[in-house]
């Protein structure tokens, strides 16, 4: 539920645009801001430093004591801050992966994810801005809000709006009939049974599930694009991996996968977060028997959002290449014709025609054309996020959160009907689901409207 005006716990958010930028800022506001920052900071004791000072040090994960990033941390104590609360700003090196990791650390150590616009809201409510200022700021708020609305509508334009409106209509039609039955019990309108309401609920739940699946793609932004590097032995998978992971920006974490020796490594390529799947397997299959290798790469393929398919461009396509091309046909992929330094037997144009995919030729060993590969990855990534015309996507947390909430409410309807709760009571949750979906499309406003306004304000500040 949205926070009320008086609930002032410590909040955190990334307050610079997400993307490449040189420096990103993660900001915290609230009583515990300094305390929490100090837990993840190696350097000066932030609880003892004077206000409005900046400190060099490292952000560490206190659980593992591993260094995440080197950074500058600003400590601003109340009341002379934007929110009139203690504020800590962590300046880090940019890149979604690092910045997000730091935010997650703060959340794990006691901060709460800020609602969109919550910093600004606190500034107003804590009286940071006096009346005249408030009025002029409110003009800006209005402008920004309207813009935020346009942006929201823009995000929704890819069909999501229509999908949700259709769901609401489906609910509304049933809802209206229930109401007619209640308010005009003697009229010969069709009696909506609890079962029909449950059926409508199930139907909408199925539709929400579909949308929520797309929300996973939205979260790629935060979690990284699951990337599989595939290809037959000795085609250069290891080299590519090494190249990617040895770059300065790489962060290697040892999150255990499904098998003990599976590793996931996070790298940032031109600001695009990649989560490399089964990196251990890549090394394995370079020098081990095919059978295990094939199994492993199939497993990796299953999880992948992006496939980097390596083919030896200096040779003709063999059966294994063809099999891999076929296997990855339904994936977003880049076909890399490697070993261009050894002469090119396969032409990019032919491969494009054959596969319908992006094709690029490289020499990983000589580090030739790898920048172009990075650009291609970036292009594909953003194309997927922004221009999925054929597929409706839920891209932000607010939307997916509300969808999940509506789903829960509809599940409550189904359960209530199973429990033989009367139709007009089961309808309470049905009605709520309708409202919740309306919050996504902006067709219904929640009760605490000030929170709504600030939710339409851009994230952070």
């Amino acid at each position: 539920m949205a926070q009320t005006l008086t609930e002032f716990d410590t909040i955190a958010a990334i307050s610079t645009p997400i993307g490449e930028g040189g420096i990103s800022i993660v900001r915290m506001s609230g009583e515990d801001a300094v305390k929490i920052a100090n837990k993840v900071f190696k350097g000066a004791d932030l609880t003892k430093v004077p206000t409005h000072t900046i400190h060099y040090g490292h952000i560490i994960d206190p659980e593992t004591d591993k260094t995440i990033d080197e950074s500058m941390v600003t400590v601003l104590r109340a009341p002379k801050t934007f929110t009139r609360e203690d504020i800590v700003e962590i300046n880090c090196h940019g890149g979604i992966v690092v910045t997000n990791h730091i935010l997650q650390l703060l959340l794990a150590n006691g901060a709460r994810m800020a609602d969109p616009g919550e910093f600004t809201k606190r500034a107003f409510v804590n009286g940071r801005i006096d009346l005249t200022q408030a009025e002029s700021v409110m003009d800006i708020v209005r402008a920004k809000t309207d813009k935020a609305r346009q942006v929201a509508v823009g995000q929704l334009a890819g069909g999501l709006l229509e999908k949700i409106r259709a769901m609401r209509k489906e609910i509304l039609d049933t809802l209206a009939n229930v109401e007619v039955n209640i308010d005009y019990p003697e009229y010969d309108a069709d009696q909506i049974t609890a079962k029909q309401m449950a059926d409508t609920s199930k139907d909408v739940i199925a539709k929400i599930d579909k949308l929520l699946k797309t929300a996973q793609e939205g979260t790629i932004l935060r979690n990284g694009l699951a990337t599989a590097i595939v290809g037959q032995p000795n085609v250069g998978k290891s080299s590519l991996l090494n190249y990617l992971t040895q770059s300065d920006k790489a962060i290697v974490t040892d999150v255990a996968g499904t098998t003990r020796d599976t590793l996931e490594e996070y790298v940032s390529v031109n600001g695009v977060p990649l989560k490399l799947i089964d990196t251990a397997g890549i090394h394995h299959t370079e020098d081990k028997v095919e059978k295990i290798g094939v199994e492993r790469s199939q497993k990796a393929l299953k999880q992948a959002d992006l496939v980097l398919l390596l083919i030896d461009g200096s040779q003709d396509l063999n059966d294994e290449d063809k099999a891999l091309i076929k296997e990855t046909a339904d994936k977003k992929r880049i076909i890399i014709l490697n070993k261009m330094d050894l002469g090119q037997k396969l032409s990019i144009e032919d491969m494009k025609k054959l596969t319908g995919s992006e094709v690029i030729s490289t020499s990983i060993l000589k580090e030739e054309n790898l920048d172009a590969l990075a650009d291609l990855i970036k292009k594909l990534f953003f194309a997927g996020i922004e221009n999925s015309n054929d597929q409706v996507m839920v891209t932000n947390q607010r939307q997916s959160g509300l969808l999940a909430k509506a789903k829960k409410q509809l599940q409550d309807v189904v359960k209530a009907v199973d429990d033989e709760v009367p139709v007009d009571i089961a309808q309470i949750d049905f009605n709520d689901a309708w409202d919740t979906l309306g919050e996504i499309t902006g067709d219904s406003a929640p009760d605490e409207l000030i929170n709504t306004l600030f939710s339409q304000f851009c994230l952070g500040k």
Partner: protein
Amino acid sequence: MKVYDTNEYDVIVVGAGHAGCEAALASAHMGLKTLVLTIGLDMVAFMPCNPSVGGPAKGTVVREIDALGGQMGKNIDATYIQMRMLNTGKGPAVRALRAQADKNKYHERMKDTIENTPNLTLRQAVVDQLVVEDGVCKGVITNTGARYHAKSVVLTTGTAARGRIFIGELNYSSGPNNTIPAIKLSENLEKLGFKLRRFKTGTPPRVNGNTIDFSKTEEEPGDKIPRHFSYETRDADYLKDQVSCWMTYTNPVTHEIINDNLDRSPMFSGDIVGVGPRYCPSIETKVVRFADKNRHQLFLEPEGLNTKEYYVGDFSTSMPEEVQLRMLHTVAGLEHAEMMRPGYAIEYDVIDPWQLTHTLETKNIKNLFAAGQMNGTSGYEEAAGQGLIAGINAALRAQGKPGFTLGRDEAYIGVLIDDLVTKGTNEPYRLLTSRAEYRLILRHDNADLRLTPYGHKLGLISDERYEKFEEKKKAIEEAKEKLASITIHPTDEVQEFLRNIGEDKLSAGLKADVFLRRPRVKIDDIEKITGEKISDDRYVKEQVEINIKYAGYIKKEQVRIDRLHRQEAKKIPEDIDYNAIEGLATEARQKFEKIRPETLAQAERISGVNPADLAILSVYIQNGRYSKVKK
């Protein structure tokens, strides 16, 4: 006309329909010297449309009126000829009691009650003018020149204000049922700065029951299980010999006649400019709007025991008389029906209700209150509920006491009044259960629990009745405790019982209150199984069952109500100057200025105000608060 001064009163009520009667009785019961003026003494609590009281939402309002010490419930309990509970197949929140009234007896009994109430004077008079000094209403002047002085005045003009009746091409100035219309009062109100608008409603023809062939219709008898509106009426007094209603249908021939004569209906010819209700359309409107339906339901409702008149429900029309007759004769059972009165449409003036506050006092004239159909509502119950609130507040004002209002979470009456004063209405407003956000809390069965304490505090509920109420509350708690203390064991007998009612077996023993959560288990069953008496009172058992079975949902609504209360706690200063708030959209500024919401919660409910405007308003108010704290 020479004006002369007559008596002085504390409260004057103009009109003695369903709103006026409640207003006058409440004021008199609160100990104030009260005068009620009516255009026709024979029209006191008259039912110009259907002879029935109650139904979904409306029935709950009647119970609320009763819990607050009003008259409607008692009056219908004494004069009904049929009683039915509607929506019995649905949940407790939407069950609704409805009674067919003996229309003449209803009027007679209410008139008798008023005549015999101390502090209350009933008089026939046409009020032409209000006495207003310095923006304060101080009395009324009648068409005979009598000037009555009062500390506060309640207007309940119903459909009389500049009323005009339409029957086909015929139309004439008239109040309901061919009574005298109030013409000058409307002019006076406009002069005083009120914005009036035209609404329209209608009524169907009445036919002679001796000429109806009931064998061609379906019977709708009353209930066997005793139920009443007033919490004071005893089950033992339940009417044994009830009169039935009858159901029949229109058919394509009826529709053909209607379609052929649409040009003669003032609804379609353009003669009627007033806005009619969407939910209660005339038969011609239904035929036009729902052209694919080849029949519409009609209800034949007896108007009383001592009359043969039958009300042809859902056949409201303003067609010419001869067309009405032809239409009627196409209906099964009415082939040879004698039409005793034709249906008609009536157009009348209403006060746009945003000109009122939640106490139903007008914003631009102090000590003047308005209630009932003249506020843009429709229905006897809606009128009576407002009348009660207006009467209470007129009396409180006369005593110099603060006003009394009900929240949306407290009563349907609260929902009704808040809707009117916050959103206004573009058609005659009818209460619907769907208008209430918290309808599981606003049930007909717990109106006494919700409102009796208010009624008692206002002096409208006697100490004796209040004691009984406290006893009932106590009995409910005791029954709950008892249930929580008894264990149901998975004996063969219990398992057999569960099997018979289609519930799953018990795997272990459990407390009776948990056992009661099962949908098909009743307290009576628990009493039988355990041999323990939970309560002797079926109304106590009803409360306990509802509270236990629907506890989860009640809690959900309670959470939403808590949120409402937080927003309601954010008061908007009475003297707020919306022009001084920069950044408000013009539309919002105008709406805020027009409605002048009392709390942020009310501001949120104004249509056409967007979240940004509310935030600006909110911050403006909060800034006042915080700037003080800052120092």
